């Protein structure tokens, strides 16, 4: 059933072909065996074709299952509210009703929410990349006593669930006067354990002679990091950027605690408030689906544009230590 079969079949086929060719070369009257052989070969080709079809069929089905909620969402947003209830199982709406998008934008500032999410995620990500790169540089290239200890302290923070830090962080933000501000959100998310771990892995692979040579030439540490190390790991930086950005854009629990004014809401909080707003739940599915589409679409577009970086980045050797 698995891919190992497809792996095995070509090998067997070539084997058979070799035998056929050998017997033909010997000039022996091989009508009978060849016939027998060719039927098995045909069977094999058919079997292989059948298995490929089965595989693609299965993958198409499950792929459809995976994207179905998105199709359902899009279909719901394009139907009128009446059609949703009169003709629920029709995926394609009788008329494409774009009005629900207009209505959704009119009843809540989704454009603003998206801009908020984008800017918060962008600044957080830039900060994360800068401070993780600097920290990873110190850990991998500079000599100091408490190096290992410091690294373990940072890694130990990975264990800390958000819940443990939420109450005190909330109080800290309140005391700093940063509650209900984007600055507070950005600063409280500025340290990323994953960023440090990921960049440390990448920096360890850079050949030390390059850095030595730069030091002899009298380059400062910051210059070495900026001009020699970072240009060499552009791919890793792109991956870290995308993963951090997506995580921050999607984050909900902490932002929903910190932000209270409507105009500062991020998209996740904004869409939830629209969802639970009076009269929406269970009555206004077409507008709710339009709002969900507005929230989901930017990320799907981002994913389509950068899927290679995201997909290979998560699992490539930089992220996986052996």
């Amino acid at each position, binding site marked *: 059933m698995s891919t190992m079969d497809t792996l095995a079949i070509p090998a067997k086929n070539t084997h058979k072909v070799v035998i056929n060719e050998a017997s033909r070369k010997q000039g022996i009257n091989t009508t009978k065996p060849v016939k027998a052989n060719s039927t098995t070969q045909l069977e094999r080709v058919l079997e292989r074709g059948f298995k490929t079809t089965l595989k693609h069929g299965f*993958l198409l089905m499950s792929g459809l299952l995976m994207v179905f909620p998105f199709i359902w969402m899009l279909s719901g947003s394009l139907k009128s509210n009446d059609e949703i209830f009169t003709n629920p199982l029709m995926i394609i709406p009788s008329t494409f009703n774009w009005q629900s998008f207009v209505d959704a934008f009119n009843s809540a500032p989704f454009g603003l929410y998206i801009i908020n999410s984008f800017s918060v995620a962008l600044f957080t990500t830039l900060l994360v990349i800068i401070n993780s790169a600097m920290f990873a540089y110190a850990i991998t290239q500079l000599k100091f006593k408490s190096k290992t200890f410091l690294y373990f302290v940072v890694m130990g923070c990975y*264990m800390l669930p958000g819940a443990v830090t939420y*109450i005190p962080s909330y109080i800290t933000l309140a005391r700093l006067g940063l509650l209900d501000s984007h600055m507070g959100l950005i600063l409280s998310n500025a340290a990323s354990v994953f960023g440090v771990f990921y960049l440390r892995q990448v920096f360890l692979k850079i050949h030390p002679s390059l850095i030595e040579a730069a030091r002899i030439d009298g380059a400062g540490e910051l210059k070495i990091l900026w001009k020699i190390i970072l240009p060499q790991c552009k791919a890793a930086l792109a991956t870290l950027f995308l993963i951090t950005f997506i995580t921050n854009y999607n984050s*909900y629990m902490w932002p929903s605690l910190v932000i209270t004014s409507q105009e500062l809401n991020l998209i996740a909080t904004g*869409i939830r408030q629209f969802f639970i707003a009076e009269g929406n739940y269970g009555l206004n599915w077409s507008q*709710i689906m339009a709002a969900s589409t507005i929230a989901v679409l930017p990320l799907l577009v981002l994913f389509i544009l950068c899927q290679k970086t995201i997909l290979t980045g998560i699992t490539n050797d930089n992220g996986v230590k052996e």
Partner: protein
Amino acid sequence: MNLNLQKWQNSSKVLFFIAPLMIPLITFWLVPFGWSVYISFTDWDYISPDYYFVGLENYQYMLEDGDFIQAMQNTFIFALGVVIPTVMIGLVFALLLHNNFKGSQFYRAVIFSPWITPTVAISIVWSWVFESKSGLVNLLLDKVGIAPIPWLESGDTAMFAVMVVTVWQAVSWTMLFYISALNKIPTSLYEASLIDGCSPWTRFYKITLPLISPTTFFLVIVNMITAIQAFDQFQILTQGGPSGSTRTLLYLFYQQAFEQYDMGPAAATSLIILLITGALTIANTVMGKRWVYY
């Protein structure tokens, strides 16, 4: 004198490089951790300025508290109910997709798309799918003559519905890790087994499964940690209800801290979550030969 100057220069250089990370880390991770431990020994209610040191009372109370015990059970049921299908389905997808063939990239991208999108937004979509009157699931059940089920309003099915959504979102990520693990198995092993005439199933049990077992272990642990910290989908789909049937430890923490302002018990709950995730992380570090991350 000269040596001291050099020493000072060196440590200021190190400080310059580690401070940008250490300052937010200390302010929002390390100090809050100690602070949470302290709060968990008090009866602070956030609003009044004074509080009492109650020692282990919050922890003792937990053991007798029905809500806490229920939340603990729910957390474990949810974690198991999410992790087992996620890892199994993820492996099936990875087995089908780890070889590059025409369209494999497309399938990978399609399967991965749920992971990219905000959990809140897709949970809203799913809440419609599970809606009791006009939801997709009940409409389909109606077609085959099964009476509608109040998925999210009944304590028996609500947890299942949240699990479905969570598995749907988590499968893709698990698949990617399995794909990279499968690609690292040396092909010579499969070639040898071909010569020996092993059946595909034997090959799977004797070669593939043992060789990807470190990845499996890693994926089980990490998916479990993620499941224990699931919040968004609960908030949208069930809010911990009906009558606490989907209230996990994290949701209990949220209600204690930010709805009832019982900061002491909430901090104690959060430390129990920390104990569980900490134990899982240590198990992962110690037992996993390849220490994989994220």
